Structures are given as structure tokens and as C-alpha cells.
């Protein structure tokens, strides 16, 4: 199969969707498919080990949907997208976040091949989304299959756009995380020192919930003197400056970390804390932490509850509740056998998210879509069975009158009788 994957966000800055596109392309190629990637950006990022992306050049940082996204649009991007589609002669085009005004939308409108799209985000109904709906709808109608990364993302799709979506979760390279070597300076209990917690995510984005973790620090430090919190993620940490000096000393801001460092970090720490307060549709980091063997303490967002199997694979606390967070971390640190049991269960559970599984599920979606396209193509040339849809199509689009108005017994029956007629 020739598959074209379109990434909407610039690969010049790291991000979840970009990494997803990279790993997806890599896995599809490993499964024997011909894969090409189109993405905004200026140069191929370090560590991009999948099929090399075709870059359409500098992306523009614009506020979109509550945060700043680096997108590509405009006549040049459009022309490049069309050229890429023309040269690729794809069987399937897979776009990500088709509702964001970037390459995904451009590819969707320009592609002749069937288009499959992944919706990554779980969004609350926003005014911008509602305003954009009539503009987006003709484009989104072209999608042959919509993929949501979780039940929560699926609900967003259903509520915003109607119809339905299939769920194919985000993938994680489980082996890379399971095999990550811990670094002594990030280790706590296992190196005989006070416990170490870690937080991943943009420091200055309130929805990532660093403030909730900070609020739990006094109690945690009282119970475990010398406890450290490692914070990995971009941002200047303005929210952390308001902390009392002693609490602030327990927090170590690592800044943006590479993927390798992230794996080592998760393999080293005693607890990974996910205090997010909203806006999460899946929780890849939770899966990554579980794959690396880090016990997880997460806020009870619907998406997180699902990933943690309602607490079987990790501890949950009420969203935004600092005291609850402190209790949950305390319980994980105190209950060694329970934590070990969860860790073992999590190690098995994360295999479901390994790219080898997720990649095959994507291929199943592509094949189902192509099956349908093939069935329609098989029927179209039959002269005595006009294409079903509308009479107007024959008159207005093709300029010919339909030869007859005979119809089969319904979509499926007509298809098959038509198919037989065409092959006779």
C-alpha cells in the first residue's frame, strides 16, 4: 500500500502529534508499506528515525484552540501539498487533526485518494470551533474514516461533527521504554535516598496541573523529608516562583528533555505524577511511564481513568485536589507490594499500546476503507446500472442523462447485483 501521512504541526518543535506521525510512519514502513510524510518545518529534527518527512518550510506560530500552534497554510503550502499528493500517487492519505487550519486540511481538500483522519484532541465546545463548522464540514465530509485516539476523543468527534469514529489509540514504543536504563542522579528510594517524583509537560500551561502538585508539596515534604520533584518540560516556571523557598528547593526544573532523557527519567523516579486538570484525550505519557516501570499517580480525568483501568494500573486522585494527590503518592510510596502488583499489571497492559499492535489496527482501517472504494469502482463502469447517488450527478457533473432509473434493493444489494453485472 502507498500511504501518505500528513502532520499539521511543525516538526521544528517537539510535540505529541509530531512524534506520533514519526512513529506511525516508521511502523507502517516496517509492516512493508510505502510511506511518505508531509509536515511543516525547515529541517529534519534530530532523532527522526522514520521515513524522512517532506518539509513545506517555516511554520507560523498562531494562537489556535487555546494554545499557540505552529501551522503551515497559504498558497505556497497549498501548492506544495498538491505537488506532494500528485507525486506520491497514494492509495490512502492519512491526515492528523484535520480540523486545524494547516496541511491536514489542505491535503484533505486536494486529495483524490481516500482520506483517513485522526482526531487527537478532546475539546470542549468552543466558540471558534462552532464558527468554523460550516467552513470545515464540506472538507470533513470527504473523510472515508475518522479515527479517534480514545473514547473521549471519539465523543468529541461525535458531539462536534456527528456521525461516528473508530478508536485506535496512540502508540508507544514499549520496548524502548522498558529497556531504558535508569540514571543514578534521578533515582530516589532505589538508590537509598528520599523519594523522587516527576512531572512532565509544559510548566506554564495551567491545564497541565503543576500548581496542584506544588500545592501538595508541603504535606509530601513533611512526610518525606528530602523528597525531590523533577519537572521536565518547556516554560519559564513562573508559577513555581511563588512557592515558599523551602518547597521551591525541592523542585528541580530540567527544562525540555530529549526523548532518551524522558525514558531514563521515567525509568529512574519513584512516582510519575500526572496532575492534569483537563484537555487530555488519551494520556500517552501515562502509557510511557507504565512501560518504563514508573508507578503512576494521576488525576481522575475520564481519559486517565480509562488508561489506568479505573485504578488497577495506577493510583487516581480527584481532579485538582492537592491533598488527594499527596495521599495517593503517600499510599504508593508506603504500599510496596501493592505498587509492585500494579507495576506488573501495567507492564502487561501497555503491550496493547505498542506500535506493533496499533500499526496493524491502522492497516485494518485502511484496508476496510479501500475495500469499500474498490467495491464502488467495480460497479461504476456497468452501463445498465447507473451510479446510485443522485440523478443530478449524471446530469450536472458528467453532462449525460442517466440511462435508466432502475435501482437495486438498497445500498448493499445494489452494490452486489451491480458488481455481478459489471463482471459479466
Amino acid at each position, binding site marked *: 500500500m502507498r500511504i501518505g501521512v500528513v502532520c499539521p504541526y511543525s516538526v521544528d518543535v517537539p510535540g505529541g502529534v509530531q512524534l506520533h506521525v514519526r512513529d506511525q510512519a516508521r511502523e507502517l514502513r516496517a509492516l512493508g508499506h510505502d510511506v511518505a510524510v508531509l509536515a511543516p518545518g525547515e529541517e529534519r529534527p534530530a532523532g527522526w528515525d522514520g521515513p524522512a518527512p517532506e518539509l513545506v518550510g517555516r511554520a507560523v506560530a498562531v494562537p489556535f484552540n487555546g494554545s499557540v500552534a505552529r501551522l503551515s497554510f497559504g498558497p505556497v503550502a497549498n501548492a506544495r501539498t498538491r505537488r506532494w499528493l500528485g507525486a506520491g500517487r497514494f492509495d490512502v492519505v492519512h491526515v492528523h487533526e484535520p480540523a486545524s487550519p494547516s496541511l491536514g486540511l489542505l491535503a484533505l481538500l486536494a486529495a483524490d485518494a481516500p482520506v483517513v483522519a485522526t482526531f487527537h484532541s478532546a475539546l470542549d465546545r468552543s466558540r471558534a470551533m462552532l464558527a468554523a463548522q460550516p467552513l470545515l464540514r464540506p472538507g470533513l*465530509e470527504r473523510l*472515508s474514516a475518522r479515527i479517534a485516539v480514545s473514547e473521549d476523543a471519539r465523543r468529541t468527534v461525535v458531539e462536534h461533527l*456527528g456521525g461516528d469514529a473508530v478508536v485506535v489509540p496512540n502508540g508507544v514504543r514499549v520496548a524502548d521504554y522498558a529497556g531504558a536504563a535508569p540514571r543514578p542522579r534521578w533515582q530516589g528510594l532505589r538508590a537509598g535516598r528520599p523519594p523522587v517524583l516527576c512531572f512532565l509537560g509544559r510548566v506554564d500551561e495551567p491545564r497541565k496541573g503543576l500548581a496542584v502538585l506544588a500545592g501538595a508539596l508541603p504535606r509530601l515534604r513533611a512526610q518525606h523529608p528530602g523528597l525531590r520533584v523533577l519537572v521536565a518540560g518547556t516554560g519559564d516556571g513562573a508559577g513555581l516562583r511563588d512557592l515558599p523557598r523551602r518547597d521551591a528547593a525541592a523542585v528541580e526544573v530540567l527544562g525540555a528533555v530529549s526523548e532518551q532523557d524522558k525514558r531514563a527519567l521515567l525509568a529512574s523516579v519513584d512516582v510519575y505524577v500526572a496532575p492534569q486538570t483537563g484537555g487530555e484525550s488519551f494520556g500517552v505519557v501515562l502509557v510511557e511511564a507504565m512501560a518504563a516501570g514508573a508507578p503512576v499517580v494521576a488525576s481522575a480525568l475520564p481519559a486517565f481513568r480509562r488508561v489506568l483501568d479505573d485504578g488497577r494500573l495506577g493510583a487516581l486522585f480527584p481532579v485538582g485536589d492537592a491533598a488527594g494527590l499527596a495521599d495517593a503518592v503517600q499510599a504508593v510510596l508506603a504500599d510496596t507490594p501493592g505498587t509492585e502488583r500494579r507495576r506488573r499489571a501495567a507492564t502487561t497492559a501497555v503491550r496493547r499500546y505498542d506500535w506493533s499492535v496499533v500499526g496493524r489496527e491502522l492497516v485494518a482501517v485502511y484496508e476496510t476503507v479501500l475495500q469499500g472504494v474498490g467495491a*464502488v469502482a467495480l460497479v461504476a463502469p456497468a452501463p445498465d446500472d447507473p451510479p*446510485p447517488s443522485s440523478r*443530478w450527478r449524471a446530469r*450536472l457533473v458528467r453532462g449525460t442523462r442517466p440511462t435508466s432509473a432502475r435501482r*437495486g434493493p438498497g445500498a*448493499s444489494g445494489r452494490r*452486489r447485483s451491480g458488481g455481478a453485472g459489471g463482471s459479466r
Partner: protein
Amino acid sequence: MSGGWAVLVDVRVLLLVGLLLVVLALATLVLSTAARRLDRLHRRADGARAALVEQLVRRAAATDRLARSGLLDPAASVLLAGAAAEALGVGEPARTAPVVPPPDGTAEPAGAVRLAQGRERAESDLSAALRAALPPEVLADLTSRPEAEGLLGDLATSCHRLALARRLANDAQVQVARRRRSRLVRWAHLAGRAPAPRTFEVDDEPPPGLLP
């Protein structure tokens, strides 16, 4: 004097004709765009429905092969073979005898609706039969036997893909239905005689533990 009149008439006629042409061109553009959009949705719905029908047949065939393999106890084999034959049989008439649409051509032929309902029931029964015949302990036993591997794999794949195909097909039907509710499509009768969209409602839950 008369020359002046002629010019005046000419201008009026020209204006009128020009206006008419612009209106016509606009109407054509709007209608053809709407027709193309609807047509695209219809074609996608037809394709997705065809894929769904194919998956239904594949699942029934995989069930039938498992039933005849001798790996299951006789009672379970009979149950599965019967359910598979029922599902395949209900789908059969559509292939051999096309139902004649009603003369007004607007609604879906009544026969087709009955057929679809019979098929939904037969496919749901097949799902129930699979769950009954393959409880976790039987499934665990089968998984450990190498000769069952291919058969179980086929069944698991077809169950998974059926759920996938059904969701895609129903999504397409819902999109068509929504588009056909729009005022322009109804007033201009753009849907023509295409059958009314209809989702395929069936219980396609695979036996627990049967993973592709």
C-alpha cells in the same frame, strides 16, 4: 426619437438578460456544488456498506470453518454452523433477486427494509452464538492447540474488522442523512431516487478474550 427608444429598450433587455444569466449561473454553481457533495457522500456510503457486507460474509465463513473443523464439541459445532448458515442465507436473496423499488422511487423498497432487519437479527444471533460457543475456558483451550491457530485468528480478525466496517458504514449513513435533511437538497430533490440512508444496527460484540 425612435432610435432613442430602441436604445432604451435594448439597455433594459440587456440588463434583464444579463441579470437572468448571472442568476442562472449562480444557481447552477450552487446546485452542482451541493449535488457533488451529496454524491460524494452517497458513493462513500455505498462503498462502506459494501465493505460491511463483505465483512459479514467473511465472519460467517470463518465461523462455519471453525464449526466444521472438529475442534469444538458437537453441540457447539452445530450451534455455530447453524447460526453461520442462517446469517449467510439471509444475505443471499439480495444477491440473486433484486427487489423492485416502489414506483414513486423515493423511499427504500419495503422488501429491502425487511431484508435488512432479518439480516440484522441473523447477524446478532451469530454474535450471540459465538459468545455462547466460545466462553473464556474453551477459548483458552483452543488457543493452546496449534491446529486451531489459523481458524481462531481468522475469526478474531473478521470479528474485529466487522466492528470497524460497521462503524464506518453507519458513520457514512449518518452523514448522508444529515446532508439530505438540508433545505437545498430537499427542495431541489438532489437525492433523486437514491434509497433513504439507514444504519445497520447489530450486536457485533466478539467473544470476550478473542483478540486479533
